[in-house]
């Protein structure tokens, strides 16, 4: 076997090209996170607003509350 210092400059250049190509082909695999942080509001653990029921409640209580609604309410 010929020691590498005895290789011709052309052979060394070819070896360098092969080594560079090998490095260029390597890639890093990143694993996507499986957990997500979810902000939990302080009152309900889960809040699922039911639009239909909300509308029914609004219609009912609008009649009840309308005459006595005060400034600053619902803020």
């Amino acid at each position: 076997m010929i020691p590498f210092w005895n290789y011709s400059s052309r052979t060394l250049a070819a070896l360098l090209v092969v080594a560079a190509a090998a490095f260029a082909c390597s890639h890093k695999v990143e694993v996507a996170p499986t957990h997500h942080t979810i902000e939990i509001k302080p009152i309900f653990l889960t809040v699922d607003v039911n639009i239909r029921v909300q509308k029914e409640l609004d219609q009912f209580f609008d009649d009840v509350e309308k005459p006595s609604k005060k400034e600053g309410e619902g803020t």
Partner: protein
Amino acid sequence: MRKALMIALLSLAGFEANAQPTEEALKERFRQRLPQLQALEDAGKIGETTEGTLAPVAGVDAAAQQIIAEENADRAALYVHIAKRTGEDPREVAVQAAIRNYREAKPDHYLRLQDGRWVQKKALKGGAPGSS
């Protein structure tokens, strides 16, 4: 004769057992009670819960306890009405009512958290649920 009397009594008993206030009757009772309840809420004596009911924040007198009990009974009846109409469970309607009550509460009003603590609405970070 005795049989007819028995049927009449049973019918009356059944009617009483199924007696449910109409929504119009409930509306009128809510309307009459509202000023007193607002005064109690403004004074920080009562607050809204996550179950769609009212509860005392601290000790209240017998009259306040009575009005809380009447209000909660009428709210429960209303939740049944709305549940029937929307096909939801009354408990779900109660939770939705709680969301609405928290949204509509004034900044100084007290709201009860799921862990039982009472906080004023203005102290809540991010506001009440359903308010965005």
